[in-house]
């Protein structure tokens, strides 16, 4: 387990850089941090729509949504999701939203 110091706050992360404490440790500062490491220039309303949706879904279901559901609820086609999160829905968007790293071949 490692820690990240960012703008005066300390976050505990797993070795893939996902927030170890999950949503309980998540805050806006974390979004700002992930923005930098993911090479996202500005976090806009569209990113926030995705983050809010992922957190809602995770709270209800205990798992990250299929990209299909992600697309249907946000209204963004798959290409748009990759434009918003260059490393994809599983690694980029879930990380920013404070979800754990998905299991499986990812």
């Amino acid at each position, binding site marked *: 387990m490692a820690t990240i110091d960012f703008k005066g706050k300390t976050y505990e992360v797993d*070795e893939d850089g996902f927030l170890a404490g999950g949503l309980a440790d998540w805050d806006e500062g974390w979004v700002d941090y992930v923005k930098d490491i993911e090479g996202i220039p500005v976090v806009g309303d569209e990113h926030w729509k995705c983050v809010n949706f992922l957190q809602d879904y995770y709270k209800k279901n205990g798992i990250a949504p299929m*990209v*299909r559901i992600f*697309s*249907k609820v946000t209204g963004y086609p798959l290409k748009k999701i990759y434009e918003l999160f260059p490393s994809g829905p599983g690694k980029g968007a879930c990380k920013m939203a404070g979800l754990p790293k*998905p*299991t*499986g*071949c*990812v």
Partner: protein
Amino acid sequence: MAVPATKLKEKKEIIDVGLEEGAARLTYERIEQVLNRVINTEMAARMKVYVDTCIHCGLCSTACHYYLSHGTPESAPVGKVKQTMWEILEKKGKVSPEFIKRASIIASTECNVCRRCSMYCPYGIDIAYIMATVRRICHLLGVTPQYIQDTAHSHSATMNQMWVKEDEWIDTLQWQEGEAQAELPSLRIALDKEGADIMYSVIGPEPKFRAQLIYQAATLLTAAGVDWTMPASPGWDNSDMCMFTGDFEMMGRIKRTHFETAAKLRVKKIVMGECGHAFRSVYDAGNRWLGWKMPPIPVIHATQFYYELLKEGKIKIARKLKEPVTLHDPCNIVRGRGLHEMMRYLVNATCENFVEMYPNREQNHCCCAGGGVINCGPPWKTKRVESNSIKAEQLAATGVHLCIAPCHNCHGGLEDIINTYKLNMHTMFFIDVLMKTMEIPDSLKA
């Protein structure tokens, strides 16, 4: 004379809930009972013959990327056998819970069962099989890393590795069909089409997160004029992490479902996407566990399928990639099944400037993600990447920025290595390359 003291790099102990809680539940009696059952019945005399045949020559050491990266005796294949199966046989199964936990760590996170060492062994001892048997023992004792165990649970609950529900699977295919039709209006992803020539099967992460791979495959199959279908019921996922946890009963069930789904659709053959371990599970491990010497329905890997389509002129290359590329040979389709020359045909047909990495073909170094190691999840990531500095050197020596790798786990493993060692490289599947280079007939376009 004493060797001067050197400060060893301090290593932090990795905590994995699956191993800690599993080992805490064990008793000596249970360990002995399970070990002897596996050694005396399931494995018959094989383990003892392997261990007794080994002359400790050490030729396997320099075949292993863990040894080449760490240079320590315990990271050599023979060292891993010494610390696990050797002791189990020597002590006739009388080992401690702590020993089982350590054995699980060695077999699940310090070996990719890539079989490079088996190739270098003068006696042909299948060291990967010994490690897989250690995993089998740890599975039966309930001491398996948590992340990969979660994936195995998904397989048993849903018949796919990412907890995808049946309606979500169908919805995803119809969604990708819709998105692809914007480009090719006549494109169909036909579900459950009985009597189609080909059933196309994928692995869980494709519908879950990487749906573009399904879009691309549908585009290729449509452009090539292939009569194909995808199943609407469980059996669409060809992957099999149970093979790597040692849960062979589940491995068999997953494989049977996959083949039965194809049989129900009365297809002539199964084509599977660009995945290495899933290929191993259908041609080698799963079919044999079920007592089938060969798969009951012919099954081919995507790379062979692309090769055949190109050879038969069903797809044509309109433009080649100009950027220099290198190729990573995935263990399971190359050492396992000899597809390396077909892959080179593909690279040369689609790319102008192909730079081989050395060693290559069946001598290639594993990505260190395979064999279920990346599936053991975040706790083991740093160790996994540090255990493959040899791969970083091999990639860097090519001097190119694009690496083709026809396997999902290889992508994950190579990307971690590329990012950690700052190699300024990116990875592509063959389907990504074909989408950029192949001709899409005008008659199909919008």
